[in-house]
Structure formats: C-alpha cells, structure tokens
C-alpha cells in the first residue's frame, strides 16, 4: 500500500464548509460549562480573601455549617496533604492547590479561603457571610520592579529554583539567560544605539464564559466532572492529585468552551466542587461570577523591560540585548524565559543577549494567555527598532527584511531555523495596498513582526467507521474556535468521503487516551496530524479488506478518492471498491474498522506574522482610534481558511485591547479596582475596524499537510504595531501599555 507521507494537492483541505457544531451554537442548544444540572444537585460558592496578603489565623465555619440550607463547607484541610512543595515549576501541583484554596496565607485579593455547598445558589451566597475568618494582614506588593527590590515583602521563601543567581530577592523564582555572539562588540560597530525601558500591565484573557463546573465524587474515590476547560485530561490529573484519588477513577467531560485563550488550561473551581461533593455526597455545581474571574483566575503577567539595540546606517542590526522582568502573581510561572526567547526571534542577529526573570507578587497566579510572554517582549523590541528606523531615516519594512530570519539563520534562542515564513509575510506587507495608502493628518502607521514557537503535545485520536460508510472521529482537544471543522476536513481528505459524513466528537477522559490541553496553537497541528494518521490507519485496514476480497496482496492495493483500487496494472483488474462497500459487511470480514493514533508529535513549526496598523490620536484628549488593520501571518497550510482568518482577527482585536485600554488596576490596598467588564475595557464592536487578513502558506516540514499553528502568533505583533502607529500619530514615543488617553495626553504635555 502506498501512502505518501506528505501532501500538497487537496480536495477538502482549504475549502470553507459550515462547521459541524454550527446549528447547536446558533440555536442556544450547545451545552457550555454552566448549562447542565444533575438530580439532587447543590450549588457551591467560594469565600475569597479581601486582602492582598494576610495570614489566615482562624476560620470559624460553625455558623455556616449549622445553617439548614448548607450541606458542606470545605477549607484547605479537605484537600490532599500529600502534594509536595517544590521550588519553581517542579511544584506545580502544589502551586495549583495553593491557588485553588489558600493554606496558611491569603496571597492576593480574591484568593479562595473556604467554600460552601447549599441547596440553592442564593443560599450558598448568603451562607458565605456566616463564615468568620480572622486575618493578620501582612505587607503586600503588586508591582514587578518593587517586588524585586530588597525591601519587598517576601511572598514565599524557598520558591526559587536552581536558576536564580545568588543574592536576588526571594520573590525572584526563575532566571533565564541566553544568546550568542558578543553584544558589546556589536554595539561598538553600530552607528546608532538606542537603549530604552518599557512597561506593560497585566491583562486578562477575557473569555466571555466564566469558569463553571459540575462535580460528583463519592467516598469510594470515583467521580465525574463536567467543566469548561481547554484540557480535560490535565483537569483530571490535577483534580485527582489535589483530592488524593486515582486519576482513572475521575471521568472528566469537557463542555462546550466559551473561550479560553490559555486561561482555561488549569483548574480553579473544579477541585473545590469535587471536595464539596465528596463531603455532601451530592453533585455540586460551581459557577464563577465575572468579578471572581477577574480577581482569581489567570491574568497574564505584567512586565518591565530594558532594551538596547545597535544599528548600522544601512539598517543592519549589529547587536541586541533585552532584560525582561515578568510578574506572575504569588506563584512561579511568569514566562520571563519565553519573553526572552521570543523577543528577538524574528531577526538574524550576530550578537544577541536576553535575560528573563520570573517574579512573584501579591496578585492572582498568572495563566497562559495566547503566546504567553511573547507580546510584551515584541512591544519593547519592535518599538526600539521603529525608533532606530525613524532616527536613521529607514523604511521599517525594509529594515526588518534586511535583518529577517530565514531558513538557516541561527535563532536568537539558539538553534538553526528550518523553513520559516517571516520574509514572505514582510514581502506581503510591503506589497499590500495598506502599506502604501496615504495617511490623513493626525494618523500614524505602525508595523511589527511577531514570533511564536507553537507546540505539539501528547495526542490521542480514534476514528471509527460505520457500516453505512460514515465516520466518527473522537478527538481530545476541546473545540474553541471551529477545530471540529478542520479535523473533519483532514479526515475527509485522507478517507476520501464527504466532509458531512464525518461526525467529530470531543471525547471524555474515559473514552480516549491522554490528550494535552488545547493550547500552544497545537490543535490543528497535533490533533490534525493524529487525525490524519488515525484515518490512514483505518485506510490501511480498508485496503486490507479489499485485498482479501480480491485475493491479492495488501501492498497491491492503494487508496484513491475514497476507494480501494489496485495499485497498478500488475495488481489485477478490479473495479474501485468504495469505502461504504467495504464497511457494509465489515462485521463479517474481520470485524469493525477503526483507526488510532497516539503519540507526541514533535514537529510543530514556529510561525511568524507581520501586522500593519493605522491609528489616529485626538491631540486634545489623547484618545486613539484604530482606523485600519492588516494581519499577515504564515499558516503553513490553512485547513479551513475562514477559521484561520478568524484566529488572525481575534488575535489582533485582543492585541488592540491590550495596547489601548485593558489593564489590571490595583489600589494602594492591593485590591483589584476594576473587576467588571464596565471597567476592564475589552474592545467593543464600535471600537474596531474590519480587520484584513493575508494568509501566507510556507508549509511546515513537521506536518503531513504542512500545518503550522495559527492561534497565538496573531497577538504578538499588535502591541508594538499599535504603539508604533500611536507614537507616529502623536509625535511622542509611548513606552507604557496600555496607551490609555490619560497616558497619551500626559506624554503629549511632557513633550510640549
């Protein structure tokens, strides 16, 4: 049997069919996290710390426990005491447990300290007021630079891992340094060196669906969990560890997911619902309020960064250096290493050095957010490159093209690039009508490049054929943005049956092997690769059945357009045998036909994008409007181009919010000031223009169809592209995000 490993001509891939779950989603029928109930169900509610940092002296829940509507109260004592504390990310289960329910100290405003299950949601909320917590308030710190200062309050001793150099504050928990060449020599060669500092605030993923779950756990250690998550296997594994039960005894079903963007890659309320259920012996539903989402789930890191870049008069970058300090809440995990590794990745640099710090502060535990760490680094680096271009009178696209990384370039993070598509995105930007369109007075244009690694991850897929020739495909990566459609397209491509004849299900943890989270832009890459391989596995078996029927060797049969056919004239003269003819009697010819694939694909190709944006600034009020936006990004191969465009547009829109108005605002008391959508200002429909997209396709050698992940890279360039546009429009360099009107107006005033 001949199966080409790589494919470049497609029948289904690259078309734009309706998504399989479209009807459910437009009729209100789709079941999201909060949309289920169970017989005998209780409602949970969580008591949260009003303090940024406080020792929990005593929790008295006796009044709550005595209330007739209350069926269970849990605190940290109701979770496993066998989860070990370890430094850095090695202690991640402990970190998650500590985040899910506070131990000795409340570490941030909104940190969970106790929870209740009661007969109604109102009763649960009311009963929270009956729990008395005695706190000893401690000094707190929320700013990254202040958290690193010698006089900063210590969040937790012993959290730093091996990497942190001697003499650093205990709040610095991880350190990264990499690069190559000699930056000092490089700076000496430069005609112009610019050194500047930049700050970004934490932003929230801002998914519209709050965290919600329904948990059932018996005293026999067997449980069921329904939750909105990017990865139900990681939820299974983590909940089991935190509750001290066996992983396989907890079955987790992923609901439809109302957005995640990285924020639903871990657990928050799920172990709490299970602990309450175990205590009450009844199912417990827990749904976060929006304010709880903002206060106690993953925002991204805030960052403080110093950049130094040297450039020759012809635009060649002679050296680049960056120091990136990222604050990730009261736990290790801020992706200072990722920021450092991504920041200069678009460029072919002889001399580069990057340093990243992971710093703790009294804020919620940061969670991944779309290319975690990369956008802030790109903001700082691309701002300095823009300033160099301006001062040297060079075109910003030409300068980037001159320095652009390509196949064979040593990446700033070490290895040599395989085939990559940055140059193609820059050339497309230069050729795009947007780049040459005239600007009106008061407008500025900015561009930026962006890089993201993309990820593979553990993946299991199962494909079962039915007698009538249709196929059911089970994947384990929750569908956040239309991935059922791309999975069905790839399966259709291999099987040669219509897209509509394939039903894609997101299987629960009991129905499929382990699957890593829907993150790292990995779903279309890894689940797609696994789908292709599972379908090919089924095709091998189909060919085997045909070979047996024809009485010829299996390697004399190939698969073409949904049919088994003899592989050549010497194989025999048989009519093509369609898939449905083989499946019709498969029970009698050897049994059901399925295909499987389980592996950790390791060829996720890196991806690059270039964005062009026009912004207009009102000089009297500092208000910015984005008037035109173009995203150009390498997709490797776009399986369903419309949903690829959607990823590009969504990344740009989130970047616009981050650049202009979104931020975590903490008061002097360390409390979050803006925990509702009224004051945490994500872009609304009237804030944005249409967002143009250009899909560049430079195939990824690590995927049979050439796919690169597309989900994350789109949020990397916007911060810098908009900052560059605003800086040109306003005539003053903006070094702090968000570029809210008060900041722009103040910058204009300072500039005279």
């Amino acid at each position: 049997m001949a199966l080409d490993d790589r494919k470049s001509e497609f029948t289904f891939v690259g078309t734009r069919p309706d998504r399989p779950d479209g009807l459910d989603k437009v009729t209100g029928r789709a079941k999201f996290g909060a949309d289920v109930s169970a017989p005998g169900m209780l409602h949970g509610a969580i008591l949260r710390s009003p303090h940024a940092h406080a020792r929990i002296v005593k929790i008295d829940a006796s009044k709550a426990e005595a209330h007739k509507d209350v069926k269970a109260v849990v605190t940290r004592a109701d979770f496993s005491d066998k989860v070990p504390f370890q430094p850095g990310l090695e202690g991640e289960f402990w970190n998650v447990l500590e985040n899910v329910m506070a131990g000795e100290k409340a570490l941030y405003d909104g940190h969970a300290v106790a929870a209740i299950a009661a007969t109604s949601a109102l009763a649960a909320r009311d009963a929270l007021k009956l729990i008395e917590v005695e706190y000893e308030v401690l000094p707190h710190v929320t700013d990254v630079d202040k958290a690193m200062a010698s006089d900063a309050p210590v969040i937790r001793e012993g959290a730093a891992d091996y990497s942190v150099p001697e003499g650093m504050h205990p709040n610095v928990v991880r350190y990264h340094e990499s690069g190559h060449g000699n930056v000092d020599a490089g700076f000496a060669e430069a005609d112009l060196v610019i050194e500047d500092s930049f700050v970004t605030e934490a932003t929230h993923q801002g998914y519209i669906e709050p965290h919600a779950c329904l948990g059932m756990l018996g005293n026999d250690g067997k449980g069921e969990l329904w939750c909105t998550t990017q990865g139900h296997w990681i939820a299974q594994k983590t909940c089991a560890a935190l509750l001290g039960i066996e992983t396989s005894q907890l079955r987790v079903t992923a609901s439809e997911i109302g957005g995640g963007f990285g924020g639903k890659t871990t657990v928050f309320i799920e172990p709490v619902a299970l602990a309450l259920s175990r205590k009450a012996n009844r199912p417990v539903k827990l749904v976060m309020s929006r304010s709880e989402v903002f206060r106690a789930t993953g925002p991204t890191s805030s960052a403080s960064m110093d950049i130094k870049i040297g450039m020759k008069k012809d635009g060649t970058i002679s050296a680049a250096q960056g120091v990136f300090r990222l604050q990730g809440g009261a736990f290790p995990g801020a992706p200072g290493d990722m920021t450092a590794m991504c920041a200069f990745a678009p460029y072919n640099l002889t001399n580069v050095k990057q340093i990243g710090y992971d710093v703790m502060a009294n804020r919620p535990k940061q969670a991944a957010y779309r290319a975690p760490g990369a956008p802030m680094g790109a903001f700082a680096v691309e701002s300095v490159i823009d300033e160099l271009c301006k001062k040297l009178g060079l075109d910003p696209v030409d300068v980037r093209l001159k320095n652009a990384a390509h196949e064979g370039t040593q990446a700033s993070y070490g290895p040599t690039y395989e085939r990559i598509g940055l140059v193609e995105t820059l050339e497309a930007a230069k050729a795009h009508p947007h780049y040459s369109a005239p600007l009106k007075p008061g407008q500025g244009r900015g561009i930026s490049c962006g890089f993201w690694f993309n990820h593979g991850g553990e993946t299991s897929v199962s494909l079962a054929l039915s007698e009538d020739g249709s196929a059911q495909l089970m994947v384990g990566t929750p569908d956040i943005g239309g991935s059922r459609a791309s999975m069905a397209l790839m399966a259709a491509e291999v099987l040669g049956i219509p897209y509509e004849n394939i039903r894609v299900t997101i299987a629960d943890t009991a129905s499929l092997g382990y699957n890593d989270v829907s993150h790292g832009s990995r779903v279309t890459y890894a689940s797609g690769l696994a789908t292709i391989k599972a379908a090919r596995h089924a095709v091998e078996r189909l060919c085997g059945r045909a070979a047996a029927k024809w009485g010829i060797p299996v390697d004399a049969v190939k698969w073409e357009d949904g049919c088994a056919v003899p592989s050549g004239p010497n194989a025999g003269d048989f009519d093509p045998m369609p898939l449905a003819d083989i499946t019709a009697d498969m029970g009698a010819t050897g049994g059901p036909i399925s295909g499987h694939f389980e592996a950790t694909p390791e060829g996720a190709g890196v991806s690059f994008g270039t964005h062009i944006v026009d912004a207009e600034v009102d000089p009297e009020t500092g208000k910015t409007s984005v008037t035109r936006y173009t995203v150009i990004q390498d997709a490797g191969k776009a399986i369903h181009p419309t949903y690829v465009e959607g990823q590009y547009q969504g990344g740009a829109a989130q970047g616009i919010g981050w650049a202009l108005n979104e931020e975590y605002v903490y008061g002097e008391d360390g409390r979050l000031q803006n925990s509702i959508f009224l004051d945490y200002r994500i872009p609304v429909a009237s804030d944005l223009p249409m967002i143009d997209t250009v899909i560049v396709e430079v195939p990824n050698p690590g995927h049979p169809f050439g796919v690169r992940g597309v989900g994350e890279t789109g949020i990397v360039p916007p911060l810098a592209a908009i900052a560059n546009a605003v800086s040109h429009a306003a005539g003053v360099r903006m070094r702090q995000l968000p570029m809210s009107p008060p900041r722009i107006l103040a910058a204009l005033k300072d500039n005279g």
Partner: protein
Amino acid sequence: MSKFHVSTTVNGDAVEYLCDPRETLLDCLRDKLNLTGAKEGCGTGDCGACSVSVDGRLVCSCLMLGVEAEGKQIDTVEGIAEGDVLHPLQKNFIEHAALQCGVCTPGILVAAKSLLEKNPSPTEEEARYWLAGNLCRCTGYDKIIRAVMETAEELREAS
C-alpha cells in the same frame, strides 16, 4: 423569604415559575425553565450574552428580575428559528464563521435580530454601535458584522 408566582410567555409558550425576588429573569430562564441559551457572562449588563427581547424590546435578562416578567412576552435565542428553518441570521452566522467559541452567539443573534427589525438598512457603523453591548472576545467582530450586513441585504431583497 416568600417566593413569587410568575406567569409569562416565552417564545410563544405560556409558562409559570416560582422565584425569589432577588432572582433575575436570566436565572429564571436558565434554572427554572431550562432555557440555557442565554448566558451569564458578567451579571452586570456589560456583555450582552444574556440578551432577550421583552415585549419586543431588547434587554439584558441579567438586569431584569424574574418577578418583572409577569404578563410579558419574552423571546430568547431558542425561539429565533421557525421549527427546523433557521433564521437568515443564524444561517449566515454559520456560513460566515461569525462565531468561534459560540458563547456570545445567542445574545448577538437576539440583538442583531432586534436591530434588523428596527432598522432593515443599517450602516456598518450603526450595526457596530447597536451591538456594542455584546462582547465577543474571539472574532474581533469582523465576521459578525459581515454576517449581519449580509443578512440585512438578503432580507431587504426578499421583501
């Protein structure tokens, strides 16, 4: 705390429920009538995921009490399609990929339907401002606005 008995009409069906006066219309639709199409994204009227129409007027069902529904005509996303025939908005949202995760979609469909009933020929700007109270975090609104404008054109041509 005594509960209130409410008789109301939802998607043309007469329904009744008992509610605490603190419970919102959204709570009652979801928890008492099992109409979970409307979502609670914020509970403060800022995201529009709970949008329903009350006596023909677009509202956030999280900003209305369940007791206030007495005697009203309420329309939710579950009532937009006529039997198995999708409303042109629903059809176009699928075709234009105007949804990614889909959690804001019920509210946006209810709001967009209300727009086209009031203004069959909205400009892009009018559509964007009408829908400004419906947050979508996935799409950047581009494909949503295109689907709404396309539907408006189709409906105009059909009438």
